[in-house]
């Protein structure tokens, strides 16, 4: 007798990684993910890369404004200057 919805495939796991890491899945669904991870190198690597990515994002130097915002503000400034002259 197998439990319902026991089996997860890799293509599903990469979509479930966020609810998994956010810990919002019921225990049985979380356990199904852990069973898959225990036997799948590719998915273990995927989850670890996702954790690494999240850690790396946390270290991105904090720019006070994005370059896009800076460009937009600069455009406003140039328009204002053009209007004046």
């Amino acid at each position, binding site marked *: *007798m197998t*439990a*319902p*919805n*026991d089996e*997860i*495939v*890799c*293509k*599903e796991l*990469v*979509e*479930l*990684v*966020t*609810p998994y890491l*956010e810990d*919002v*899945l*019921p*225990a*049985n*669904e979380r*356990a*199904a993910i852990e069973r898959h991870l225990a036997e*799948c*190198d*590719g*998915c273990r*690597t*995927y989850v*670890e*890369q*996702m954790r*690494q*990515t*999240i*850690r*790396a*994002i*946390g*270290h*991105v*130097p*904090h*720019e006070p404004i*994005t*370059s*896009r915002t800076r460009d937009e503000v600069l455009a406003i400034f140039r328009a204002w200057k053009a209007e004046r002259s």
Partner: protein
Amino acid sequence: MIAALKDGDDHAFTWLVDQHHAMLVRLALRYVPDQATAEDVTQETWLHVLRGLSRFEFRSSLKTWIVSILKNRARTRATRERRNTPVSDTWLATVADEPAVDPDRFFGLENPALIDRWASAPRGVAPEEQLLAAETQAIISRAIEALPLAQREVITLRDMEGWSAADVCNALGLTETNQRVLLHRARSKVRAAVEPYLSPTDQP
């Protein structure tokens, strides 16, 4: 043993519970969604075991009989409590229109035995200093800037600023699920962008 139980011997019952309780809870967890429900089902099982003792015949071992009662209770409970669909299925349907990983990296119909499993699995994880290297950080910044506005807002607040999910929902007026979908899409894209830099053997 069974005679002692039928006589109402405390020690015999305690011994039985010590022997099997943890195993029964684990088994129940295969049917019901959480620990508390599994505990509940197991306690219900003990009650049924005691009530059924007088009718217990020696056609099976005591353990087999208890397990069969547990399975019955757990299935009944699971049916009663089952949400129409598991959380995972609802989520998978929600995010289905935008795959986190290029579908070509999984086996398809040409390999039915391995369908939807990795054909080209991600390889290796980076040493910690690689994550902090200016090159990796620049890739991440660019990937985040390229995201649609709503995804960019969520990933910035969650993963750069370290806000909680609840705070982000409040600040941006999002439902929990929407917040999570945006975070999922954003993180998946950023991971894909840095993947070549995370594999130590595969420097681009």
